[in-house]
């Protein structure tokens, strides 16, 4: 017996459940048309081709605890997620607004702490494990803390998007945004002729420009490096990819050393000064003299140079205090406080289990809620109420009662689905969206995002560590939408407005 399936908003079809006459959303009509015109097994052969190519390029991630032969591919789905220009402009404005406020919050919390005095964020945040007292009073260039931010968005209806969480430490996945696009262009060039899709491949150039802009004052030709934990890290491909795309050195901790309040890298020509470090190592492992003393990944003395302004770290140390689930609930208020604006993107309604009322409600309605650890990430340590067994619910209940402040609860969102190629053919699977917001002299994002998809039927967990896959995200350019209405099967290349106008 199947449970009655709730209806989910589908990115492609307005009423996916009623499949006799699916009403294809306007932005997907050309895709649907194309889909009807291709042989049935084409998508699957393209999927296989993609797998071979990804493996050859080495776009793999390592799985912790398995031997070094176990380089895995993140499942790549060949059906794109398409966003209309207007949808995107709303999302991007909202994400930019949010990151501006979060950067101001980080500066504030490590300086005057006005937001605490205003009673908007409780003072208890200062005893939070991700709050770094070492950063108090430290001035970072341009007052930017989160140079790279990943904002996780989910959709529940045509018009309703929510921010699920902010990622301000070392957000990853942008290489998949870029590589998925390259792959789609290679596999389906004809679709790129039918659609006018905003390009994303300038992301590394924007990132490099921003990183150079946050070097210490007075450095004219700053040396930027990417600091990686090394080839056995699960995101090594991305570290290497970004370093290569930016044309900067990919370094590991032992390649760097500290001398006379400066950081140097060991080169074949002797020591070379480093000005900006795009680090993909967590705070805890950055400097064994200050944080985790056993860390082999970091650079002894790095933090002291950083605090004295001898080197810039991106992201800054101590951003974790702002992307935590206990801080998340305050972000809308932060936006009003710092920017005097109404938030453009909504938070998911969240119950704080440190509050008696919220706790009581949560314990009484556990089966309908999603409960997350305040400091958890990667989809670990969370409970999805509707998918849990009685026993799991009971176990989790005991864990909450033992330490309620460690958890928050949210209603189980009806995450939108997107058509996805699975063994049985094309079927709806739940998706989320992570655009990457870059802060330098300006705050920008390229028109695209990492779209993660839960490959398992009904699953709401999209994390790659839990078997999630990725999709290319197409942000359509404004003028294109007109084109589609007029001509669902474009014959030739649609390259210019002039050509379109004459058709």
């Amino acid at each position, binding site marked *: 017996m199947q449970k009655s399936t709730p209806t989910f908003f589908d990115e492609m079809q307005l009423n996916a459940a009623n499949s006799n006459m699916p009403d294809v959303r306007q932005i997907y009509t050309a895709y649907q048309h194309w889909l009807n015109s291709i042989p049935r097994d084409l998508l699957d052969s393209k999927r296989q081709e993609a797998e071979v190519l990804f493996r*050859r390029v*080495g776009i793999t991630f390592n799985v912790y605890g398995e031997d070094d032969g176990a380089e895995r591919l993140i499942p790549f789905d060949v059906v794109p997620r398409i966003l209309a220009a207007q949808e995107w402009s709303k999302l991007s404005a909202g994400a930019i607004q949010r990151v501006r406020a979060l950067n101001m919050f980080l500066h504030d919390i490590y300086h005057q702490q006005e937001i605490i005095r205003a009673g908007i964020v409780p003072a208890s945040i200062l005893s939070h494990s991700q709050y770094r007292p070492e950063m108090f009073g430290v001035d970072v260039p341009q007052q930017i803390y989160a140079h790279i931010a990943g904002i996780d968005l989910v959709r529940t209806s045509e018009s309703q998007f929510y921010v699920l969480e902010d990622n301000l430490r070392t957000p990853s996945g942008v290489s998949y945004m870029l590589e998925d696009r390259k792959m789609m262009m290679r596999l389906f060039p004809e679709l790129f002729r039918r659609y006018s899709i905003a390009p994303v491949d300038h992301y590394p150039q924007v990132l490099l420009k921003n990183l150079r802009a946050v070097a210490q004052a007075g450095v004219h030709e700053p040396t930027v490096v990417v600091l990686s934990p090394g080839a056995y890290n699960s995101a090594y491909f991305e570290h290497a990819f970004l370093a290569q795309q930016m044309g900067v050195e990919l370094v590991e901790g032992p*390649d760097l050393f500290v001398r006379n309040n400066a950081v140097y890298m060991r080169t*074949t020509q002797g020591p070379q000064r480093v000005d900006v470090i795009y680090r993909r190592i967590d705070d805890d492992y950055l400097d064994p003299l200050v944080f985790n003393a056993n860390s082999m990944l970091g650079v002894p003395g790095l933090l002291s140079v950083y605090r004295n302004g001898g080197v810039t770290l991106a992201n800054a140390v101590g951003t974790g205090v702002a992307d935590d689930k206990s801080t998340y609930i305050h972000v809308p208020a932060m936006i009003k406080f710092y920017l005097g604006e109404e938030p453009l993107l909504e938070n998911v309604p969240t119950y704080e289990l440190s509050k008696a009322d919220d706790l009581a409600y949560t314990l009484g309605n556990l089966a309908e809620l999603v409960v997350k650890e305040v400091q958890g990430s990667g989809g670990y340590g969370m409970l999805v109420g509707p998918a849990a067994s009685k026993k799991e619910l009971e176990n989790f209940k005991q864990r909450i009662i033992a330490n309620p402040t460690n958890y928050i609860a949210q209603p189980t969102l009806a995450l939108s689905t997107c058509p996805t190629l699975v063994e049985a053919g094309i079927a709806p699977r739940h998706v989320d969206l992570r655009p990457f917001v870059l802060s330098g002299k300006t705050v920008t994002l390229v028109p695209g995002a990492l779209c993660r998809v839960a490959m398992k039927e009904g699953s709401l967990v999209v994390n790659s560590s839990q078997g999630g896959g990725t999709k290319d995200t197409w942000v359509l350019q404004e003028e294109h939408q007109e084109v589609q209405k007029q001509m669902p099967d474009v014959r030739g290349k649609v390259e210019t407005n002039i050509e379109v106008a004459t058709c």
Partner: protein
Amino acid sequence: MLSRTADHLYWMARYIERAENMARVLDVTYNMSLVPNAAESEAALWLPALEISGNVEAYERDYFQRDNDEYTAAGVIHYLAMDENNPSSIYNSLRSARENAHAVRVAMTSETWENINALWLEFSQFIGQDLAKNGLREFCDWVKARSHLFRGVCFGTMLRDDAFSFVRLGTFIERADNTARLLDVKYHLLLPEQEEIGGAVDYYEWSAVLRSVSAFQAYQKIYSDTIEPWRVAELLVLRRDMPRSLHACFDEITPILEQLSGARTTECKRMAGELHAKLRFGKMRDIFQHGLHEFLDEFVKSNNKLGAEIHKTFFSIAT
């Protein structure tokens, strides 16, 4: 460039070259075993292949129990091609090359990286195959072709910067070592039977040596005469137009080290210059008088010392 990056690039190239040379040795040894006149025992045929790689003792430890204290074709082929416990097996060389490349994929062009990654992915098709029974030729050809492809993709796509220099340096240091060892083992073996020089077996032996370094046609072209050991030695030691000769290797190594050292006075630059001079100005007659074996033995040692000096100068910078 980063010292660690240079180190990985250098070793990546060395391991690819090592795999190629091993494939060459296996290939010619196997061919010789097919010559009907080869009146040699299986052991006498395959032992030299082990001696070139310098791992006779390890082989005896791991294989003799199984093979009744004999050197067998099957054993030696497996040991040199596929054995995971033999650090210089083709399997391990290619694996190490790929690991070094993976650690510094940023420092090379994407074509170069993809080439090495594809090599390693393709290698899996040979795993588990009984190469001694069949497929050894195809395997050796494949290794050689992949090595050619590797050098080609580096040469054709890499910026002419220090990264490229370290890759080339690795290739030629390794090649010089391999050519010297190959020649030494073969010469050493044939020397006691000098009176038989000119016989059919001898011809096959020496032509095999030549073929193993792609020098058979070159020999015919240059000397158009019967194959004489001293000429083979000359071709592989002193001829600078012979791409696998010691002289040709140092024609590459010396300028690379000069360029990498820049204005610095480095010991490795001096050592390379000294070795290079011996090859440029040396005479075959003197080398023979001194003893070819002694010459080659000394060369291998000097070449190793040079390798150690390269490490000291570029890869392990004191802070």
